């Protein structure tokens, strides 16, 4: 089959704001090098891109970790590359924020101690850094349920949560380093009003996926383009990447998702444990199934780690 156009799905992830204008030069280069039209779709939600990929309506996509996970599991997607932060960070981190005027709360321990008097701004339930990561590391590990321990819990986007903390409307809220860094640039006055009380382990940088059934010839061309872009000492390319706040891409594969899978399973396990309606034996069965999957994941991760050290 002879592909004339390549459909490229792009979403606003947690870590960057996508603006067509910054993308256009990169996509132009891409279609020049590949010799086929690259048609971008800037979607504000990943649901459409993932479903489109399932029916071969999208060929490549730039997604967040959680959405890439869905794409891999549901739509026959495969990770082949990973973005790299322009400052050289290998990824980004989840944060918990508190207003500076609040001198009482300075750590997770403080927060848990006073939780009954606090309002908590949780993230979007499908967000990696705003929800998944803190719900595991902050709450599940401490054996508490974020929905229950606070005076009030709300779910909102990073920006709303930041604003709410800065103006004192909520006491504690989730966020991530990328978003906070951007706010520091655009709104230094707001940035000065908040402090960070907790920082998560590293979250891998955003993956780039293609659909598995893409013709091998096309896969090859795309891979070559991505891997060489910005590495040929062409300063124009570097500049284009910088505008996207990136350094040259790194190769990657589905294994990038293993820690995310782990978190998802932990989250599910937690949900099961907290389900009052489910019968005890059914619950035990399901928890066991999850634990089996987790063990498998652990083995896979160990194997990868071993391979690396070899």
């Amino acid at each position: 089959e002879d592909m004339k156009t390549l459909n490229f799905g792009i979403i606003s992830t947690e870590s960057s704001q996508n603006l067509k204008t910054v993308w256009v030069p990169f996509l132009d280069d891409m279609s020049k090098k590949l010799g086929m039209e690259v048609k971008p779709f800037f979607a504000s939600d990943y649901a459409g891109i993932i479903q489109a990929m399932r029916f071969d309506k999208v060929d490549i996509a730039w997604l967040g970790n959680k959405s890439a996970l869905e794409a891999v599991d549901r739509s026959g997607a495969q990770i082949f590359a990973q973005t790299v932060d322009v400052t050289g960070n290998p990824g980004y981190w989840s944060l918990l924020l508190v207003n500076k005027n609040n001198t009482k709360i300075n750590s997770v321990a403080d927060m848990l101690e006073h939780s009954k008097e606090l309002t908590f701004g949780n993230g979007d339930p499908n967000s990696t850094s705003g929800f998944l990561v803190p719900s595991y590391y902050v709450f599940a590990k401490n054996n508490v349920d974020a929905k229950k321990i606070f005076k009030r819990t709300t779910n909102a986007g990073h920006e709303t949560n930041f604003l709410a903390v800065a103006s004192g409307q909520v006491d504690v809220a989730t966020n991530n380093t990328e978003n906070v860094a951007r706010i520091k640039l655009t709104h230094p006055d707001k940035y000065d009003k908040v402090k960070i009380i907790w920082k998560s382990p590293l979250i891998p940088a955003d993956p780039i996926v293609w659909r598995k059934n893409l013709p091998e010839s096309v896969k090859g061309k795309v891979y070559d383009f991505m891997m060489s872009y910005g590495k040929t000492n062409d300063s124009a390319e570097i500049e284009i990447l910088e505008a996207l706040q990136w350094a040259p891409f790194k190769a990657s594969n589905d294994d990038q998702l293993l820690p995310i899978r782990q978190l998802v399973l932990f989250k599910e396990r937690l949900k099961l444990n907290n389900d009052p309606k489910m019968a005890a034996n059914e619950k035990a069965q399901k928890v066991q199934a999850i634990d089996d999957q987790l063990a498998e994941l652990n083995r896979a991760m160990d194997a990868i780690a071993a391979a690396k050290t070899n």
Partner: protein
Amino acid sequence: MSDITANPLIKKPFNWVSAISWAVLFMLLGWGWNAAEMNPLILIKDSGNMLEFAGDFFPPDFRDLSYYLDEMIITLHIALWGTVLAIIFAIPFGLMSAENMAPAWLYQPVRRLMDASRAINEMVFAMLFVVAVGLGPFAGVMALFIHTTGVLAKLFSEAVEAIDPRPAEAVRATGANKLEEILYGVIPQVLPLWISYSLYRFESNVRSATVVGMVGAGGIGVILWESMRGFNFQQTCAVMIVIIICVVIIDLISQRLRKAFI
């Protein structure tokens, strides 16, 4: 009297304004056909995909029904207050932006104000109220209220502009003042339509998820949103069925109420 058959028939002069308007509309549609990448053929060709995807939604998963109903109640509360406040404000604003009720110096600015309160995104209002009253349903009520006022005032005023002027004139001719003229001559004529609009907006406020989600007030719209984004399509289907039932009930109430006033 029989020379009429010799007369050329009456024909209105060619209406340039209307001809040009239609031409412009068709040109825009033609332009838009390409710009919007209209392609009905592919829709037919790949409609199998739609069936396959729609299949994911069945059977609906009602395990969390009681949770959905709880959240539906929250949603109804927020939508009810947002709509009731909006109706209260939309009545005067709507009358003030009707051309046959208010002088130009009044209706023009009021109409523009209403345009703005529709056009400014609900999220902006939501944020605006969040900073004042904090996260929670109240901010959602306020945001819905402002937006709904803009919509209802527009719809109300356009119903008023289409009334039969004669009964209102008769009331005015008795020496009644403006308010009395409106209450006795105008409202009885527009009441069925006003009820229809109000319940339509109530319904669409119940459906609206973004605002209520943004202020962290929860509600059925947010559950729908989340289950969809979480790819739990069978749950999504169950939530939608709850919403559809609610919309049908509101529609039936609307029919009943309007019937009482038609």
